[in-house]
Structure formats: structure tokens, C-alpha cells
């Protein structure tokens, strides 16, 4: 039993900090705050040159041969500095599924350029009437010679306006319902018939609604077998649910503690207030637990096991709870936005309060994760009725 941070973690953190100092510029941070795109092409290319986009892939495939935890340290370091991480993080979910299940020619066409930071892939799962029920997919793909014609609509396709491809879930068996009869495609986003509509969020992020009207895609871009999209989705979803979310709870805790320990204009330190101390002590525990559950994910993956969605449940749940509680603790000044000179701690508290609530929704809502844990770990019956009707 050894909980010491391994030397390779501290080493990779130091490398990532040096990388951030060089590549995550003030302009880039401001642009990210202003646009909420989650993507910076120059940053992607710089990461690609280091092999840090597909960091866990072998060097021969354009990766850096890192383990999952080393890779998450890089992402956390960029995020801590305010640099965009959504583009590369999201791209790797389909990239790993493609690597596992796509045809050789498609792999050769896509993967090297993903690893180089040249190709961005967004996710086209969710539809207006299907969020957590991801398999309630109505977007249709119909075979026509060597290609497919796609019609439908997808919600919350973050960076669809910048991506090169969309990893798209479609229904190819018109008679099917639920998880059967689905097929995955990698749709080039410059195909005629694709229309994007910007969606602003309360959390400074921009996302999109994407309409597909008679979009013609070559069969070359099919991922996995026809009507076997469930298998491809499983690979991609599991990767997402098992992600060790280098805990934002800790990031917020560190900011709150620094606020409490810094004397105000009259020399008072809020850490001396019993009400603040007690809450920060409780917060410190939740942050530690979130970290430990995340570390366990990394450890289990390293020894070849399946960690399950425990960390993906506790981390975001504690983050949401504390993002709200910190506003109470810091007071009205915590609500001042980063764009105002009087913002406290650079507007962090306002930013986290706005954005945290999405973390228990995307990547598997907490309800879905709880159901998975109840079924897989506790042997309880399935609590979501299977789709039998359209």
C-alpha cells in the first residue's frame, strides 16, 4: 500500500507546467473566456507535436506512451491555467472507439491526424427527445449505393462549428427501437446539408444544435458493423464514464482556501471565522475523497481492471454542491463575474457556480451512473424500463 505521488506524476506535472507557460497565452485564455469554444487550434497542434493529444497511445502511433493518470495530469494542468481542454478530451473518446473497432483504412485516415492535433471530432449522440436515454435515437441513415443518406437533429454538439468530424449515432434499421438497429458514422463536417445553430449556455460554454438534411456520407466513414452501433457506443461511453476527472472539487477547494487565508483590507483572515473553518474542513474531506476515487480509477486501469463510474459520480456531485456552498461562504462578492475588476479570486467562484451544474449531466448524468452502480456493484434490478415502443 503506497499513496505517495509517484515520481512520474510530479515529473509529468512539471513538464505540463512548462508546456503551459510556453503555449497557453493570456490571449488564448481571454479568447476562451469570451467564446467558450473549448478549442484552440494552435494549442492542439502544440500538444500534438508532444504526442500529448493521444497521450496514452504508443509513440509509434503519435502518442507519448503515457498511462491514463499521466494523461489526465496534462489536461488538469492546462485547465487549471485557463486553457481550453474540451476539444482534445472529447476527440479522444471517439478516437479510442475508432482505434478499437473501425476499419483499417478509416483508422489510417483518421488516427494519425487526431494524434497530431490536426483533427477534431465532436459527439453527435443526444437528440431533442433523448438525453440520458441515448439510444432513443431518431436520426436516420439510409443506404444508397456505396453511401448513406442521413436526416435528423442532434443537441449539445459542443464545438460542432469547429470540428472536422462528428461521431454520429444513427438508426439504420427503421423497424428497430432502443439500443438495436443503430450504426455509428464519422461524418465530415464540411458535407453539404449540415447546419449548425449556436447555443449559449449559462456556464460560459458555447454548444450547438446540428441539423442533418440529406447528408450523404460514404460507407468508408462507417465505424463498426451496420446495426452494431451499440457495441461502438459502449466502448465510447465506458471510456467517458470511467474518466478519472482530475477533480474540479480540489481545484475549487484550493481557490477557496487561498481566499480564506489571504487577509482582506482590514487584515482579517476569513479562515479564522468558525463558520468558514468548519465548511472548509468539510470541503477538504470531499476534495480528498474525490481525489482518492480518481486515483483508484487510474490504479485499476493500470492493472487492467474496470474501475466503474464511482469517481465520475462522486467528483461532479461534490463539485456541484461546493460550487454553490462557496458562494454562501464567500458572500455577495463571490457572485462578481471575471469581467469586472472587483471580481474575487479572478471571478473563479462565479465561473464555477455557473459551470459546475453541467458536470453532473454530460458524460452520463448522475442518475444513469447511480443506476449502473446499483446494477453492476449491488446486483439490483435494472431501474430504467427498456424501450419496447417507438
Amino acid at each position, binding site marked *: 500500500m*503506497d499513496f505517495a505521488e509517484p515520481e512520474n506524476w510530479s515529473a509529468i506535472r512539471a513538464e505540463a507546467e512548462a508546456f503551459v507557460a510556453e503555449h497557453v497565452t493570456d490571449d488564448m485564455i481571454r479568447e476562451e473566456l469570451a467564446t467558450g469554444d473549448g478549442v484552440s487550434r494552435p494549442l492542439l497542434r502544440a500538444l500534438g507535436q508532444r504526442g500529448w493529444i493521444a497521450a496514452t497511445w504508443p509513440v509509434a502511433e503519435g502518442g507519448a506512451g503515457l498511462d491514463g493518470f499521466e494523461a489526465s495530469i496534462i489536461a488538469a494542468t492546462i485547465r487549471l491555467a485557463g486553457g481550453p481542454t474540451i476539444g482534445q478530451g472529447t476527440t479522444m473518446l471517439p478516437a479510442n472507439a475508432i482505434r478499437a473497432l473501425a476499419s483499417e483504412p478509416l483508422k489510417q485516415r483518421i488516427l494519425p491526424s487526431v494524434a497530431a492535433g490536426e483533427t477534431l471530432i465532436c459527439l453527435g449522440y443526444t437528440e431533442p427527445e433523448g438525453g440520458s436515454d441515448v439510444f432513443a435515437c431518431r436520426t436516420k441513415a439510409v443506404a444508397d449505393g456505396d453511401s448513406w443518406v442521413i436526416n435528423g437533429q442532434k443537441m449539445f454538439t459542443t464545438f460542432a462549428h469547429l470540428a472536422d468530424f462528428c461521431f454520429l449515432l444513427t438508426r439504420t434499421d427503421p423497424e428497430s427501437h432502443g439500443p438495436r438497429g443503430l450504426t455509428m458514422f464519422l461524418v465530415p463536417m464540411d458535407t453539404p446539408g449540415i447546419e449548425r445553430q449556436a447555443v449559449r449556455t449559462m456556464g460560459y460554454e458555447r454548444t450547438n444544435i446540428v441539423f442533418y438534411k440529406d447528408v450523404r456520407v460514404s460507407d468508408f466513414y462507417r465505424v463498426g458493423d451496420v446495426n452494431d452501433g451499440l457495441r461502438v457506443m459502449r466502448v465510447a461511453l465506458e471510456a467517458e464514464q470511467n474518466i478519472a476527472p482530475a477533480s474540479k472539487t480540489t481545484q475549487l477547494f484550493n481557490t477557496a482556501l487561498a481566499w480564506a487565508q489571504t487577509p482582506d483590507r482590514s487584515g482579517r483572515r476569513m479562515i479564522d471565522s468558525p463558520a468558514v473553518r*468548519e465548511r472548509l474542513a468539510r470541503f477538504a474531506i470531499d476534495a480528498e475523497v474525490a481525489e482518492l476515487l480518481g486515483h*483508484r480509477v487510474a490504479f485499476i486501469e493500470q492493472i487492467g481492471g474496470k474501475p466503474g463510474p464511482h469517481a465520475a459520480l462522486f467528483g461532479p456531485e461534490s463539485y456541484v454542491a461546493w460550487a454553490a456552498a462557496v458562494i454562501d461562504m464567500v458572500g455577495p462578492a463571490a457572485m462578481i463575474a471575471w469581467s469586472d475588476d472587483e471580481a474575487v479570486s479572478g471571478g473563479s467562484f462565479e465561473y464555477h457556480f455557473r459551470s459546475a451544474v453541467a458536470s453532473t449531466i454530460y458524460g452520463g448524468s448522475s442518475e444513469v451512473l447511480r443506476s449502473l452502480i446499483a446494477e453492476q456493484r449491488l446486483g*439490483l434490478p435494472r431501474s430504467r424500463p427498456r424501450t419496447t415502443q417507438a
Partner: protein
Amino acid sequence: MNLDLSAEQMAVRELFADLFANESTPERIRAAEPLGYDPALWAQLIGTGALGIAVPEGLGGAGAGLLELVLLAEEAGRRLASIPIAEVLASVRLLAEFEARDLLEESMSGAKLVSLATGTASLADQILADGAVADYVIALDGERLVVLARPAVVRHLTNAGSLPMARWHDATEVTELAVGSRARQSFDVACDEVRILRSALLVGLSFEAIEIGAAYARVRRAFGLPIGGYQAVAHPLADAIVATDGAQLLTWKACWAAASRHATAPSLASMAFIFAGQTACFAAQHSLHIHGGYGFMAEYDIQLYFRRSKAWQTIFADPQLELHGLADRRFGPVLADMAGDVS
């Protein structure tokens, strides 16, 4: 980083898992009530050499560490073992530290039961976790760490958790182990070991309380379905198992930090105790609740877990006060009185 147990540690865990599963059955737990002490189980535990596990070999022990004791405590917690665990295991390590050979030998052999008074108030003002069954307690008396002998008359205080708790009036001092800062330091370390061992007891309790609830929810039907298929029943159990995993990791980390004399050791001991207590009480409460009226019946085992979860936590400390202790350890002392201050 390595979160796996060694082969030896796995063997320790298995040994005690078997012992407590076989010898601390619900029937035995009920038979030991209301005192909460099962002398036969105690004799069996002594027979395994358990009390010497973390005592140096030169003093007649097995020379293992706190983690092995934590594994023992988790298994004891899982089966609500009706015997003293946390304070006794911490005491035996104090006796070893001060090479109090006679008492150490008596404790390890089971001839005498030596426990710890974890409070800092005068002994007569404390409720001792093992007071009704202990022969000696180690206590901090001002600047001195002393061993006190059981008074002639001790009255068990019948209680919600069926703990063998009692007050000791007019206990007589047997020996002094240390004086001054050394006394305080050793006492503080022993209390942190109690925090860690109590966390381990509560972690084991929590895992089993969840399993009892899940087993019931798999078979009990309502409105045509097993109730485990309803999210209002299932989801809090999922939260509980995630938190219990977290509490176990926290307890193990606290153990590692204590053994490697890491600066975070005291904070982690506090965190583990607070979080494991909160988690076990939540797990047992929800598990009882989903039994409906049956959970309230003395005949159902979950009520044993519900009562013991609160008792095993609160006999050591009010978790709210522990939060302030954690704040002192983690953030340093309060430098200005802001109790009445409003920002």
C-alpha cells in the same frame, strides 16, 4: 502508488473475515446484548494473536503495522463484533512504545483487558468505551500518561448501541508511562490510531449494512417489482457504496500516512473518522428505511447496524467538533477571534 494489499495482508484479512463471519453471527451479537461483550469471541480473537499483530517482534508481537489492524477492524465492523477493538489495539501499541512489558504481556495474552480513555476531561467525567469490561485504562492525567486500575464498583450504562460503556469513579493509578510533552504526543498518536481504527470499523459496518439493504431490495417486491428496481431505493444505496469506497481509501491513506510519518497524517486521521462515521450512519439509516416497518423490528439485523453505527462514531467524538479539530490540523490555528464577526 499502489492501492493493493500484499499477499500477507490479504491473508490477514481473510483470517479475520472468517473468524468474525463464523463467530460473530447475528445470534451471537444478540446474545451479547445489552452489555455488548462476547467473552468467547474475545478469547478466540486473543487466540489468533491479534493483539500482538502490530507489536514489535522484540516485545513478543508479530511486528506488522497499523494497516493490518485496520483490516482486522474492517472485518470486525462488518460483523458488529461484540468486543473492544479500537481503544484496545491502540493501547497495546502504547504499552509497547513505553515497553511496559508486564502489562503488555497481560494484554496480549488476554489475561487483562487494557483500554484507552480518549477524552481529556478528568477520568470520572468520561464515559469509557470499554469501561464495563476493561481491567485497566490508559489515560492522560494533565501532563502525565498513566495506567489506572478498574475500581471495585463499575456500573454498565445500558445504551443505544449496546456498547460496554461505563464511568470509572475512584480508579487507582498503577503506573506512569510518560510525563510532559512526550506524554501528550504519545496520547495524541494513540487517539489518532483510535480515529483510524474506528473509521475501519465503520467502513466494515457500512459495507455490510449496504449489502443487507441490497439483498433485501433484490427480493422484496412492491407494486409488482423488486423494490431495488425503483431508483428512490437504489440510488441512495449507490451513493452509499461510493462513499464507503471513499471512506475505505481515506482510512487506508491515513494509515499509510501515519506509518510513513507523513505531515498529513493527523489531518487524514480526522478526515477518515468524520467521513467514515457520516457514511456508515447514512448507509445504515437508508438500508433500514428501505426495509419499511420490518427494519424497525428487533428481529431484523439491520437495526443492529443502525444502532451500532451511531454508537461507534459518537463514543469517540462529536463529528462536528472533530471538524474544528481537522481545521486546526489542516489550516493551522485560529489567529484572531472572529466568532461574532459578520463579513
